């Protein structure tokens, strides 16, 4: 390994700082004593917003809804993404290119397009907005990340593994279960995590596909325009970071181990 030049180090450090100073601010203002508008520096600090947040049933309900939506959207996206990757991998068929474009499209087009298209379709179809319409919106743009992770892993998987399994008399399902799935596990974890994260913090598509359900970002948005107890939104954002930190670290270790062992 070569040592990095000073310029490179400084640039990398600068970028990291750029990404984190606002988070530090977010952190600091979870403790401010001002409740409507923030000033710098904060007049004094308090921990009472944590208590307020903890006792707020709306927050708990919104958090619960967001977790459920993200989980279901993630599962749907993983299934759809894996199926598509399985079909596209090592097969050529008419419309293959078009399909891979369609998979990428919802994430490559601005969220507002996906949102407005689905909203008007849901209206035309005379469906009412519900938990499931939110899931449909989220899963649609999450498929891309699941698909990309799985297909990238499949490309690095030697076809001979599968041939060997088949030669040994395993059926399709057995081959999938015992040979392919272990190979894919780290890709599924990474893709799933990313899908979960995308869904969990999504506001734009949700605005269009939700009825009066409040996901956590929607709760935050409505609290930001209601200027009382504003630090509570910071507490919530902070709590989300802390809560997600552990699973990310675990997943990262897991996928690195899997990578090394393969």
């Amino acid at each position: 390994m070569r040592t990095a030049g000073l310029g490179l180090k400084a640039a990398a450090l600068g970028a990291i700082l750029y990404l984190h100073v606002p988070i530090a601010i977010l952190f600091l203002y979870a403790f401010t004593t001002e409740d409507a508008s923030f000033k710098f520096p904060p007049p004094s600090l308090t921990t009472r917003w944590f208590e307020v947040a903890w006792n707020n049933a709306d927050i708990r309900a919104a958090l619960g809804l967001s977790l459920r939506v993200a989980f279901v959207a993630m599962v749907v996206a993983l299934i759809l993404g894996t199926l598509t990757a399985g079909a596209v991998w090592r097969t050529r068929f008419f419309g293959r290119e078009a399909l891979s474009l369609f998979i990428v499209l919802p994430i490559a087009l601005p969220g507002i397009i996906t949102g407005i298209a689905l909203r008007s379709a849901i209206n035309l179809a005379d469906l009412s907005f519900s938990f499931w319409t939110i899931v449909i919106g989220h899963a649609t743009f999450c498929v891309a990340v699941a698909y990309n992770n799985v297909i990238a892993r499949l490309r690095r998987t030697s076809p001979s593994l599968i041939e060997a399994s088949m030669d040994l008399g395993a059926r399709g399902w057995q081959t999938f279960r015992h040979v392919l799935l272990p190979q894919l596990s780290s890709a599924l974890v990474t893709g799933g995590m990313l899908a979960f994260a995308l869904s969990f913090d999504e506001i734009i598509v949700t605005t269009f596909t939700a009825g009066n359900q409040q996901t956590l970002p929607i709760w935050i948005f409505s609290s930001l325009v209601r200027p009382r107890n504003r630090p509570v939104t910071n507490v919530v954002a902070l709590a989300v970071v802390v809560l997600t930190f552990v699973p990310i670290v675990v997943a990262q270790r897991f996928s690195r181990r899997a990578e090394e062992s393969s």
Partner: protein
Amino acid sequence: MRRITSLVVALVLAVAACGGDGTSAEDGPLQEIGDSEDKVVIVAWAGYIERGETEAAYDWVTQYEADTGCAVEVKTAGTSDEMVALMTGSDEFDLVTASGDASLRLIAGGTVQEVNTDLVPSWNTVDERLQDAPWHTVDGKHYGVPYQWGANVLAYNTEAFGGNAPTSWNVIFEPMNLPDGEPNAGRVQAYDGPIYVADAAVYLKSTRPELGIEDPYQLNDEQYAEALDVLRTQRSLVGRYWHDAFIQIDDFTNEGVAASASWPFQVNILQASGEPIASTIPTEGATGWADTTMMHVNAPHPNCAYQWLDWSLNPKLQGDLAAWFGSVPSVPAACDGNELLGAEGCTTNGFENFDRISFWKTPTDDCNGTEAAGSCVPYYRWVTDYLAVIGGR
């Protein structure tokens, strides 16, 4: 999965034929309140329906829920237009707290139903000035129950104005130096909703009487063009247009905003946090809002909804809400003896200003039914043109 299947089937049909209208069987208003359903779903302005979660003293939901067994669900909306979009786009809402610029559109579009005031025992306690107000009464039929009202005041920084209240809206419409000697450019704000065109019309009505503006919501092409010109001039003075109350509060605190069209709500909060901000209604008068709780034509929970309509008029709720939102109760009895509002609360929030306010209503091309179609500039043009003005065109 059945839902998804039906979605796709419907979609295919939709693409081919583009759907039919929602069915609504309207047999006139309810005649008798029956058993409560399980809940009532309300589209409301942020802060309009509180259950004590933000501050324990401000709770006018828990008691209703205990009394009626109807759980209250709220969908907040940030603008009148959002409210209209929500109400027209869905059948899951029962009630909406619509301002005058939404209420007539909802009535015209057949989205809300006539309210049987006999089923609202508190109706007689409503401020007489509001009982037959044109923004919820059409052909003698009432399409809702007044909720709260208030003025769009001129908020100003007392330090920038040397302690004297500005007497004209010109401080935010014309380039000038403010009493502190600094120019107003970059230090004023305006509302980013298209209805703000009416504020320019209110200003022109008294500064340019030769234009003959009578109602700021009924503008002919010439008057409208002049109003847009006022707004274009204002564009060069405005740093940022405000969309939600919070952003404006921040801008008064941190951006050195000296004057802006605003709501009493922001002024109350800014004063409470010790900022040198006050508000006034200049000599030209002001626009204002008067909100009405209206019921969806297909309200899924009409019995709970009627009970909410009556509940929404009780003096305690009206007074607490007025204190919370900086608005004026539609029930005058609420002004007396409310702890949160205080003895002077109604006066502070503008109870006496009723006659100086041009209340928000939707501009229509037939001047709200008073002229032939095509005489007035309709609302959709306000939307497009105001967006263009903000974009610097």
